């Protein structure tokens, strides 16, 4: 059976199902990270001493560059599809995937550094917040990578069978990916700089 409006848009809303779905999902994500930011504020203002400059700003900055870069490649992966350039699309999508991987490697180096210094989450509320926020964000990166891996690998067949839906799916992946980037844009100053 076919569900209407999976590919084409519904005339009165101007939307395909997936588009609205992904945005609603992102709305709930806003509230998820919002609650953590809110907790961050309250714990920080309530603390007697809040460490500053504990984290490696340069590593954080490099990771910011990487994520922003991956956002650009992601949107290009979609735009290339729109321009019917399959080769470029593959290139950009794989690039995005690779950048995400590098981000996680960096994150791993950072984590390992903290652990060897004995800075477990129990070390201080700041470190706890750091691990929780970046950990949750990292999981989102990982989730995004799984989805991209799918579209690089087994999912790519759909381009032949149902081109439009494939393009839509890449667009939704992109929306998710930009959101993950957007979260990092706030995490970076909040954790590394302030």
């Amino acid at each position, binding site marked *: 059976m076919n569900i209407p409006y999976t590919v084409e848009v519904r005339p009165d*809303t*101007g*939307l395909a199902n997936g*588009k*609205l779905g992904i*945005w*609603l999902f992102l*709305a709930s994500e*806003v*509230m998820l990270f*919002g*609650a953590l*930011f*809110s907790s961050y*504020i*309250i714990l920080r*203002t*309530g*603390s*007697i*001493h*809040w*460490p500053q400059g504990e984290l490696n*700003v340069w590593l954080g*900055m490099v990771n*910011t*560059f990487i994520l*922003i*870069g991956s*956002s*650009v490649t*992601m*949107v*290009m992966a979609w*735009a290339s599809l*729109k*321009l019917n350039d399959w080769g470029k699309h593959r290139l950009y999508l794989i690039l995005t995937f690779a950048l995400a991987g590098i981000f996680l490697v960096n994150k791993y180096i950072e984590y390992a550094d903290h652990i060897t210094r*004995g800075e*477990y989450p*129990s*070390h*201080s*509320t*700041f470190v706890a917040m750091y691990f929780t926020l970046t950990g949750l964000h990292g999981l989102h990166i990982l989730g995004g990578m799984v989805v991209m891996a799918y579209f690089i690998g087994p999912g790519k067949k759909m381009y032949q069978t149902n081109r439009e839906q494939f393009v839509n799916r890449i667009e939704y992946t*992109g*929306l998710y990916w*930009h*959101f993950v*980037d*957007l979260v990092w*844009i*706030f995490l*970076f*100053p*909040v954790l590394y*700089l*302030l």
Partner: protein
Amino acid sequence: MHSEADDIKKHVRTYWMIGGALYVFTVITVAVNQIHLALPFAVTLALIVASMKGYMVASVFMHLNHEKKWIYGSLLLTVAFFIVLMSIPLFTVMDSIGTDIVQEVPAGSAHPGAGAPAH
């Protein structure tokens, strides 16, 4: 259809430019951070810059500058409740009749608030 391809081509240029702008803004925040400003000022500045970056990502990469009304509607609702959510810290501490008890520091830890070493 032809116009869509043209549109996209135009957009592609914007995407690269926005990417560049995001890099520049990142460098600016980090640079500003190196000259240690007073905390309230630094926070304001960092949040303003981050919001601008966020705005660029959302409006251009996520196409929020031209979306359908259902998506705007949902996001508007989210923003409203997000604001409520962000006011929780205010609600928790601003109007409490309780006062913090500053505890004697237990042996072996530096600050009760944060930064106590593990052992």
